[in-house]
């Protein structure tokens, strides 16, 4: 009798423990095509010769984690590229982790706190926030593990922060107003010129809302429009944030008030969507009102033009074009600069730095890989890749390249400070909240602008 219950206890406990172990591994394992032999194109042999490190050459098994954010389109392309890399180096396993935009940054914050960031990962412009987790890529550039002969200095500089090379840009973009040329024609309006103003934008939106039946313009990035892009439009060399993120360069609300006033007026008249309608768009450009035909203008990054045109064409909207962001005065600065839309970085807790560097080099420089990636993240920074892609550009991409060219040639770009301080998100949220209070009438425009300035200064420790 005594042994009976002991045996039963042990067997029960054991079975429970075994069931617990059936939870399983939830990582996104890549589908390796290990049955195929290593395919080394002539291009491949040339590029790998430069990038071969010990770990790759003597075939020891290596695993690295690679994470990025994007749409399904981007996930498929990037996964194909990773599989190409694994074919070339069969001893390397890449654990791929695609995410949506906000899920990605939540995860990055958590991993940063645990000092366990992915080996290779995509980054935006928030270098200040994650400075501790990002490795300096300068040694790999100097040793040619990451080749930069075909990349202009300006594009390398754009992802440097705090004296270190924080990443290699995966594509450049610039802010743009994407507009529906057919609706402009229907409203009898001329198309936006290169130096159109906010006044013109407002009057166009009022006219266009008659054509669409809903809004004239879709959502704008109001915080950027008022500060990062907006403040330089008043005076060349003036910016919202100081270059070293120690505070604000401006202290007068007069730089923010005209923009906020414009948005308030447009929301009241129905030319601009109210906060409820904006909540419906969420973060996905494919739900934008330009795509559904309820608006004729929207603010996006130029690299999002491709996804937008593809989705819009499914709704029968075909004639979308790129325009600059409106400015304060027709002869004033544009406030626009080329930015890195996203870059690829290595984490400080990466154990296989040579393999990680080789992957970064592959994605940035390899021609076969870039035929698949096709500049979906932005205009590639390598001139060799740009030339190669020229032959297979779609109409939308041709427009993007021309637009980037135009912005890049403008002299205003070099005076614009694109650095985002660590408290950027908090400040942006506060701006949007104050904007909503101004729209609902709880604050006057001046009070709302003052609130934003006070909060920004306080966050930056000024």
């Amino acid at each position, binding site marked *: 009798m*005594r042994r009976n*219950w*002991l045996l039963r*206890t042990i067997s029960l*406990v054991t079975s*429970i423990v075994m069931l617990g172990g059936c939870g399983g591994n939830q990582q996104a394992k890549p589908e390796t095509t290990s049955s195929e032999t290593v395919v080394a194109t002539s291009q491949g042999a040339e590029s790998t010769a430069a990038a071969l490190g010990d770990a790759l050459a003597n075939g020891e098994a290596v695993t690295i984690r690679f994470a990025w954010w994007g749409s399904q389109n981007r996930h498929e392309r990037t996964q194909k590229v990773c599989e190409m890399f694994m074919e070339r180096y069969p001893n390397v396993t890449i654990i791929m982790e695609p995410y949506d935009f906000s899920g990605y940054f*939540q995860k990055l*914050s*958590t991993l*940063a*706190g645990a000092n366990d960031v992915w080996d290779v990962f995509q980054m935006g412009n928030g270098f200040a*926030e*994650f*400075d*501790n*987790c990002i490795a300096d890529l300068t040694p790999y550039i100097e040793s040619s593990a990451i080749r930069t002969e075909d990349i202009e200095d300006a594009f390398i500089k754009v992802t440097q922060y705090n004296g270190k090379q924080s990443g290699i840009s995966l594509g450049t973009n610039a802010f743009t107003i994407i507009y529906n040329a057919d609706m402009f024609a229907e409203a009898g309006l001329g198309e936006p010129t290169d130096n159109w103003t906010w006044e013109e934008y407002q009057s166009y939106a009022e006219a266009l809302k008659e054509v669409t039946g809903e809004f004239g313009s879709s959502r704008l990035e109001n915080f950027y429009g008022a500060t990062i892009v907006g403040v330089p439009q008043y005076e060349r060399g003036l910016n919202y944030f100081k270059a070293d993120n120690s505070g604000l360069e401006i202290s007068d609300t007069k730089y923010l008030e005209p923009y906020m006033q414009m948005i308030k007026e447009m929301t009241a008249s129905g030319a601009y969507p*109210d*906060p*409820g*309608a904006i*909540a*419906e768009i969420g973060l996905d450009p494919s739900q934008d009102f330009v795509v559904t035909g309820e608006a004729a203008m929207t603010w996006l990054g130029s690299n999002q033009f491709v996804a937008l045109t593809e989705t819009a064409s499914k709704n029968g909207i075909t004639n979308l074009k790129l325009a600059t962001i409106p400015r304060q005065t027709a002869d004033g600065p544009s406030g626009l600069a080329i930015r890195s839309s996203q870059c690829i970085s290595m984490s400080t807790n990466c154990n296989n730095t040579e393999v990680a560097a080789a992957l970064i080099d592959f994605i940035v420089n390899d021609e076969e890989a870039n035929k698949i990636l096709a500049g979906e993240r932005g205009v590639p920074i390598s001139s060799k890749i740009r030339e190669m892609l020229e032959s297979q550009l779609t109409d939308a991409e041709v427009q993007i390249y021309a637009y980037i060219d135009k912005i890049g040639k403008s002299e205003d770009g070099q005076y614009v400070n694109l650095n985002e301080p*660590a*408290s950027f*998100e*908090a400040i942006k*949220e506060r701006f949007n*909240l104050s904007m*909503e*209070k101004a729209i*609902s009438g*709880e604050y006057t425009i001046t009070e709302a602008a003052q609130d934003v300035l006070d909060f920004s200064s306080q966050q930056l420790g000024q």
Partner: protein
Amino acid sequence: MEKQVGAYEKLKSIIHKNDFVGYVFAAPFIVGFLGFTVVPMLMSLYYSMTEYDLTSAPIWIGFRNYIQMFTGDVRFWNSIAVTFKYVLFAVPLKLVFALLVAFLLTRNNRIVSIYRAVYYLPSLVGGSVAVSLVWKQLFSRKGLINSVLLGIGLERINWLGSEVWSIVPLILITVWQFGSSMIIFAAGLKEIPGSYYEAAKIDGATTVKSFIYITLPCLSPIILFNLVMQTISGFMVFTQSFVITQGGPNDATNFIALYIYNQGFRYKNMGYASAMSWVLLMMIALVTLIIFKVSDHFVFYEASDN
């Protein structure tokens, strides 16, 4: 007897005590509780007195987070108010529906078992992101609800854009998932002796009277249980607001859990967020205590001498 045998005897006597089995079965839970609940809670208490941005080391600042919260943060008080408003509407509505439907479904019909399963389904689906997205579509400007309103002849309501109405879809998602409360009520209803109802019928009581004077008092311990459970989970509402309104027009749906999340993970004020979480914990504890104190007056336990 030698010393070695003495040790073995000791081990055997421990294993053969009846308590030992209890400890073995409780061990997994205790380990989990310590590791995943107690230790993180203590760490959170520590973080609440620091300034911590997740990427650099925490800096000790004492009670400054708490002082800031109570004196300098209007949004915090707004969040508390909005969460209370939500709980005041969602919890009673949910329990009323649960009780009504449970009452209807415990009549002696065979067909009701199908209905019971059907009404329980929304609870199974859970308060997930997918469900919230569906409800967002329903309440969008051109969604189903507005179409129905237009069909009746009323005007479209801008649900997601109105500070007054934006909390309604969020409340409704919770009320819609009354299934688990309903099952518990149904179990309680079955327990009430039929003889009470028969006696009441003989005395000439109507259905309503017998509901008020028999059903409710007999159910009161279960009402208390459901009230406490739903209130606690009501205070922790998050997903609906995060997915549908992101804090709502002008913070009208900025529930405290969402505000804590934003402060901790997006604005990188993890110390401040931890402090707010502890204040939330105290608040929920206080409300639960009040409910229990009040319950002495309305709960009738069959076994006691009340």
